[in-house]
């Protein structure tokens, strides 16, 4: 039996806060193990797309399905369950200010109820993978922008979240870190993890197993 798509959006309409039509009949499908790189200029609706995917905003009409289940208009525990399957980086996804780096990274595992031992193991793995061991006990306000982004990547990965949403992956990164992040994304893509990467860069690098989209006139093409 084939796996249901990770994300499916059909005939989605959404108005912006200024009441202009942001999405008109938007259709999008992301199959398991595939990634999507969505480009669009500032104000094209990339962040609104993220808001729709995490359920913090509802479309005027249309159907959104995540992991094979209808998503739009969900509330309470089911919405929380969906959100736990998504790892977010950049844009809306920031760090929890009064938690240390280690606590921020391990937070998704707390929500899934992982035991202390496995939590510790996963945390150490993430800290070393993203070179954050020295910063483990540091609070976000003392981190550089690059470090903050790395912590977000670690947090979005630690619980093996099946979907990762990355809003502007290269924002504020130096070239060295960008190369590392790109390597990480390539590795994640090869491992069969689904990702949605939103960027304003027209020449965004292509990832393996990925499809490129552009937001044009409220549609994904």
């Amino acid at each position, binding site marked *: 039996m084939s796996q249901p798509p990770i994300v499916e959006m059909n005939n989605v309409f959404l108005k912006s806060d200024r009441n202009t039509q942001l999405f008109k009949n938007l259709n999008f499908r992301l199959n398991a193990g595939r990634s999507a790189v969505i480009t669009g200029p500032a104000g094209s609706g990339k962040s609104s797309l993220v808001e729709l995917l995490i359920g913090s905003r509802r479309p005027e009409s249309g159907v959104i399905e995540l992991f094979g289940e209808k998503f739009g208009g969900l509330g309470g525990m089911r919405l929380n*369950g969906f*959100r*736990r399957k998504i790892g*977010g980086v950049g844009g809306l*996804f*920031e760090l929890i200010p*009064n938690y240390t780096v280690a606590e921020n990274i391990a937070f998704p595992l*707390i*929500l899934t*109820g992982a035991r202390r031992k496995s939590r510790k193991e996963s945390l150490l793995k993430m800290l070393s993978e993203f070179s954050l061991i020295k910063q483990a006990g540091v609070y976000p306000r003392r981190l550089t922008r690059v470090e903050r982004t790395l912590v977000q990547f670690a947090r979005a990965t630690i619980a093996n979240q099946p979907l990762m949403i990355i809003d502007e992956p290269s924002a504020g990164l130096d070239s060295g870190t960008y190369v590392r992040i790109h390597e990480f994304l390539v590795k994640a893509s090869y491992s069969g993890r689904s990702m949605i990467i939103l960027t304003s860069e027209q020449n965004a690098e292509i990832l393996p197993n990925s499809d490129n989209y552009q937001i044009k006139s409220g549609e994904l093409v």
Partner: protein
Amino acid sequence: MTKLIFMFKELLRNLYRNPGTAFVSILSLTLLFLLFELFWIAAETSDRFYSDLLSNFQMHVYVSETFPDKEIDSLTEKIISVAGVSEVSYVSRESARIELAGIVGTDLLVGYDDINPLPRSFVIAFDKMYLHSSSIADIESTIIKLKGISKIDYSRQWLEKAETTRKIILNIGMILGGLTLFTTVVSSANNIRLMTRTRAHGFWQMRLLGAGRIFIALPFIMEGFLIGFLSAALSWLVITYGQSKISFTQFELVLPTLKEMGLFCLAAGGLGIMSGLLGLRKLLK
């Protein structure tokens, strides 16, 4: 279990990171509870004092001069059958003279050996549950109607005054209690609201990661309980310490039982929970 441990850690973290706020909360609540408890003790003590006085309350019923001695027994029976009367003792003229001599001395009674103008009487005691002015007045009106009774004496005004005083203490206690509890809830709720307001951004991030509202709110609700409980326990400690150091000769302070104190602490914790829910109203919506 992981989540529960995390929530407890969050609770401790809140207290550790905001020791000043927690200390001020506990201190202000302790003072409020102290005030409440002082009135509780005042009410209990005055109640005991009043009950002790009432237990000696008696009514003197005088027999008319013309009433024959041989019918005294049947009159006694009639009086004891009145609802609320627990004990009747008859005081003959001779007993009255002996009693009077005991009070004023025998010298004043010289020349009254053959004449005894003192009336015969009954001394009546009452059941505990009839010891209030309206019941006593009912008993009085029943007894005065009996054939052979000429007059009834008892401390009517004292009884009414004691009852009014008791009622005033009780009312003040209730008003003060209500105000204290209201202030407790509002003050705790405000503290929690201020604490959570500074963390609103963090809560939003937690929500985006899939944390439920209850998961975020529970540590604060537990904190409300803990602060309420500790404040109440501390106030009782102060009270019991004070009581052990102060002694009154006229009366003894009546403190609630340990069980009552424990229940009060739990109730204070309950108020803390209520404060937590009020303080997190917006977050929980």
